[in-house]
Structure formats: structure tokens, C-alpha cells
């Protein structure tokens, strides 16, 4: 189907992609992200899983707290496990939790924001009251309390982050829906007899999707940092290596006073670089969605 509409959409998508690639911050962020994504996917090729296991590492003759010069490439921890293997396999959990929690955040935030903004009235009042409440309650303590009560697993962490961080998305989407709703094409469509569902699908969503995408990209860093903090406090999944779990082990096994920098430097740097990459991409998308921000 190559209707003029389709061709126009294709052209505008290509145009956005080209403009994204031309922006240096966006390009750098995307390249960094692709590298880390590839590392997470190719984990089995980059590091043998046995490096995560204390017993297997002992059998392989790994030293305890071995520095990078004694055990290639990043040394070992208190249980003789390879730091490199933990870093590579841990990137999977950090990226997965970051992305999955963001999907939950955006889904709930969009649903609430569009419903409140489009239908208005009493429903809007109630939804915004709930949103305000979630905005006021301190985010990290709420996440900690929820994670403690629900138990320690990857899925609970995703649920907890999603449940606690949707309100700002909801507010943003609602505001955008309110302005789109005022536009003439919505009135025209309605007077031609379009249903609410049709208007939301054909007119509202296409006009807020750019904003939602930018917001989603900017929500990933928050999800990743929250996962790290929860894991650092001992609320992560005890069965899986993650960057936050590595920092948790490094702290409680006193890697700091031993000056075992090879244990806590890599996961922190990984988080920093991935978070920066998502921020750069998100800011670029934001500028594309709202050109007024471009000369910032």
C-alpha cells in the first residue's frame, strides 16, 4: 500500500532519523547504547558463565581478590569469581530491568495521562489526585518498602520501579493531550461522527507519541539508577549478577578498604556510561519533538 499518506509518513520518519543522526549527542548516545546492547546479547561469547560460580572459579585456580594483573582481564572478588564475567552478565540485568521498568512506567503513565486529559471532568480530578499523591510520596523509600514486602526478585524490582515512577509521565502526557484536544482537526473529526476511541487512536496518539518516546528514553536512566540503589541496599535478586549487586558485594565485603578498585570501578562506570547514553538520546529526541528546545 503506497498511498500518499503512507509516503508522507515514511518521508517524515526518515527525516526524523536523519536529523537524529546529524545531532552529535544523539549519535554518540546511540553508538554507546548499541555497544552495550551487543555486549549484553553476546554475554555467552564474551565471558564464560563458570566465572560467576564460586565453586567453579576455585577449581579453575582463581585467586581471592586477585587484581587484574593476576587474573585476566578484570581480576576476581572475595569468592574468586571473575569480575569481567560479572560485569558482562550483569549488564543484561541492568539493561533489562531498566527497559522493562520503563515500559511499565510509560504504559501506566500514558494510560492515565490520556484518559485524564481526553475525558476530563471528574475522572480527570480523581486520576490527578492519585498522581499528585504518588508524586509527593518519597520515591525511593516507597520503592524500598514495596521491594521489602514483596520479596527479592527481578520481576518485583521491575514492578516496584514501574509503580513508583509513572506519575511524571502521566502529568506530561495529560498536558500535551489537553493542547492537542483543542486543535481544530479534533473538532472536525468529532463533527464528522468519529468515536472517542477513533479520535484517540488517529489524532491524539500520533501527536503525543514523540513526547512519549522522548520521555521513555529519559525514564530509563531513572529506572537503571533505582535498580542499582535497590540492589546496593540488598533488595536485588540474590541469584543473578547485576551491576548493583556487584556494588553491594563490593561494599559489604569491604573492597573499598582493601582498595580493590577493579571490583567497584567497572559496574559504576558501566552505569554512568549507559545512563549518559540514554540521557543524550532522550534530549535529542526531545529537541526533535519540540524544536523550541533545539538551541539549548
Amino acid at each position, binding site marked *: 500500500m503506497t498511498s500518499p499518506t503512507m509516503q508522507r509518513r515514511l518521508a517524515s520518519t526518515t527525516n526524523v532519523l536523519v536529523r537524529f543522526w546529524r545531532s552529535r549527542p544523539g549519535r554518540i548516545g546511540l553508538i554507546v547504547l548499541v555497544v552495550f546492547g551487543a555486549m549484553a546479547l553476546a554475554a555467552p561469547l564474551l565471558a564464560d558463565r563458570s566465572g560467576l560460580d564460586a565453586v567453579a572459579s576455585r577449581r579453575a585456580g582463581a585467586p581471592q581478590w586477585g587484581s587484574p594483573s593476576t587474573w585476566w582481564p578484570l581480576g576476581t572478588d572475595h569468592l574468586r569469581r571473575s569480575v569481567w564475567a560479572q560485569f558482562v552478565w550483569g549488564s543484561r540485568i541492568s539493561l533489562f530491568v531498566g527497559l522493562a521498568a520503563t515500559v511499565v512506567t510509560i504504559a501506566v503513565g500514558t494510560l492515565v495521562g490520556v484518559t485524564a486529559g481526553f475525558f476530563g471532568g471528574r475522572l480527570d480530578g480523581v486520576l490527578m489526585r492519585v498522581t499528585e499523591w504518588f508524586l509527593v510520596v*518519597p520515591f525511593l523509600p516507597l520503592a524500598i518498602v514495596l521491594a521489602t514486602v514483596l520479596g527479592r526478585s527481578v520481576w518485583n524490582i521491575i514492578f516496584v520501579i514501574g509503580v513508583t515512577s509513572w506519575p511524571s509521565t502521566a502529568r506530561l502526557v495529560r498536558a500535551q493531550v489537553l493542547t492537542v484536544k483543542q486543535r481544530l482537526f479534533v473538532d472536525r473529526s468529532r463533527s464528522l461522527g468519529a468515536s472517542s476511541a477513533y479520535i484517540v487512536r488517529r489524532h491524539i496518539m500520533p501527536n503525543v507519541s514523540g513526547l512519549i518516546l522522548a520521555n521513555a528514553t529519559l525514564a530509563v536512566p531513572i529506572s537503571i539508577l533505582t535498580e542499582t540503589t535497590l540492589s546496593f541496599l540488598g*533488595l536485588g535478586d540474590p541469584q543473578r549478577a547485576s551491576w548493583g549487586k556487584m556494588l553491594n558485594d563490593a*561494599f559489604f565485603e569491604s573492597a573499598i578498604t582493601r582498595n580493590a578498585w577493579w571490583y567497584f570501578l567497572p559496574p559504576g562506570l558501566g552505569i*554512568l556510561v549507559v545512563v549518559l547514553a540514554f540521557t543524550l538520546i532522550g534530549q535529542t529526541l526531545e529537541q526533535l519533538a519540540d524544536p523550541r528546545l533545539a538551541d539549548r
Partner: protein
Amino acid sequence: MAQFISKKVLGSTLTLVFVLVFNFFLFRVVQPDPVANLFRGRNVPQARLDQMRTDFGLDGSRLTQFWAYLRETLQLNLGFSYQSRQPVWDDIASKIWPTVQLVGLAAILSAAIGIIGGVIAGWRRGSAADYSITSTTMAFYSMPDFWLGMLLLVAFAVVFPWFPVGGMTELGVEHSGVGAILDRLHHLALPCLTLTLAYLGEYAIVTRSSLLDVMGEEYLTLAQAKGLRDIQVRNRHAVPNALLPVVTLAAINFGFVLSGAIAVETLFSWPGLGKATSDAVLGPDLPMLQGLFLVFSAAVIVFNLAADVLYAFLDPRVRPA
């Protein structure tokens, strides 16, 4: 104005009631038997489990439990901590001051430094100063605060042992007078530096972008046309107007002082509310966690209210006629 304030107070009270109800339901209904869940897979005698359920008010019907909970909470009776065996409220009260000292100081320092940085960066947009301030603050903003603390710890407490690795006072040494203050500052330095660096990014970013919004305004052109020096235009005309959103941000952030440093307090063994939270998680000490959450939420709600009222005083446009 009185009507505006009373409306805001009412809203905050409602939110607080909401928190109370949520606190109850989270611990009893979503997870009907938190005691069993917490000790799943561990060998805990049945008698001890029953004892804990009674201590925690988990017997009786849901409604009786709820009324008992409301009554007790309003009397600041938050139950007994599993770990210290002290009343939760006494435990919390003794930890407020250390947290206020550490995080409060960091909040003030980060606001001051962040605003100055944001003004310098925004006023000369695209300059080398802007570029370095923006990228530095963004880097601090993008790393976990406790990881930044780990780096500072290794650098200034292990490799160069200038500062203590943790705690609030030197153990086994009695200091008094000036010595005690110096000892406290010595312990405060690293965690306070960590939090200041971690927080200032937000202030710098908000100040910078708010200043950029103001810079297009005509009254600045007028001020320049009057022949004022650049620095006067900036400090007398641009900055005061740009600071409005920053004031709100600061007021809201002060509400997060109590709950804001959970990981950093843990890292530096600072005996405040944040460390109490992570200890309660590891326990796990449910009454303590519940009490802490209540206190944290109350602090945020009160400061949010203050921010709203303050904003109405500062910006007449927000005030209802």
C-alpha cells in the same frame, strides 16, 4: 490568600491520611502475612512467628486492626523495633538530628553552588564555561550517589588516609568543645561532599534553563539600553526572575532531606534515618520500616505545602485574586 492557604493545607492533610491508609494496607492486605513471607525458607520457630504477629498487630479482624493502627499512630506509638527493641518513634527521633546535619548541610551547599554554576553557564551559553559546567554536573547527576561516595572514600580515606572511612565520631576518644565540633566536621566532610556533588546537578540544570527562558525578555534589553553593565543586568534583573522555579525546587528538595541519603548514609555508616532504613531492610524490621516511611512522607508533604505557599507569595500570578 487565607482561602488559598487553607485549601492547600486541606489537600496536604488529605494526602497524609492517604499515606496512613496506604501504609496500613501495604503491610497487611497486599501481603496478608508479611511475617511468614519475610522468614520464608528460614528456620524460625512457630512460637516466635506467632509472637511477632501479635507484636505487629496482625491478629484480630482487618477493621479492628485498622482502628488500632490509626489510634496508635496518632499517639506516635509506632510499635517496637525488632532490632533495637526500642519504641520505633524513640529510635527515629534520635536519628533525625544526624541526618538533618549531614543532608541539610549538603542541601544548602548544593543549592548555593548549583545556582551559581547554572547562572554562569546560562549567561554565557555555548561558552567553554557553559560546556564544562554542564558536562560536569551531568556526569555527577548520571552516577549512583553511593558510587561517587565509594570513589571519594577510596581516594581520600584509603589511598590518602586524610578522612575517616565512616561513622560520626571517633571511637574511644572523648572530645569536648571545639575538639568535638572539629571531630564531627572531619567525619562529615566526605559524605557531605558526596551528597553535595550528587545534588548540585539538578540545581545547575534548572537554573540554567530558567535563565535561558528569562533571557529573551524585553526588560533585559531595556536594562541593557539604559547602559547598565552586563553583570548588573544579570544579577539585578535576570537572576531574580530566573530563580522562581529554583526556589520551588529547593523547598521541595528540603522535604527530601530526611529520606534523601539512604545509600550514602549506609556507605559512610552515618547513624541517621537513611542508615536506619537500610538496616531495617536487612533485618527485616517491619515496624521500623513502616515508621520511617511515615516520617519520610510527612516531611515531604509538609515541605511541598511550604513550597506552594512560598511560591504564591513570590509570584503574584499564581495567587488567586
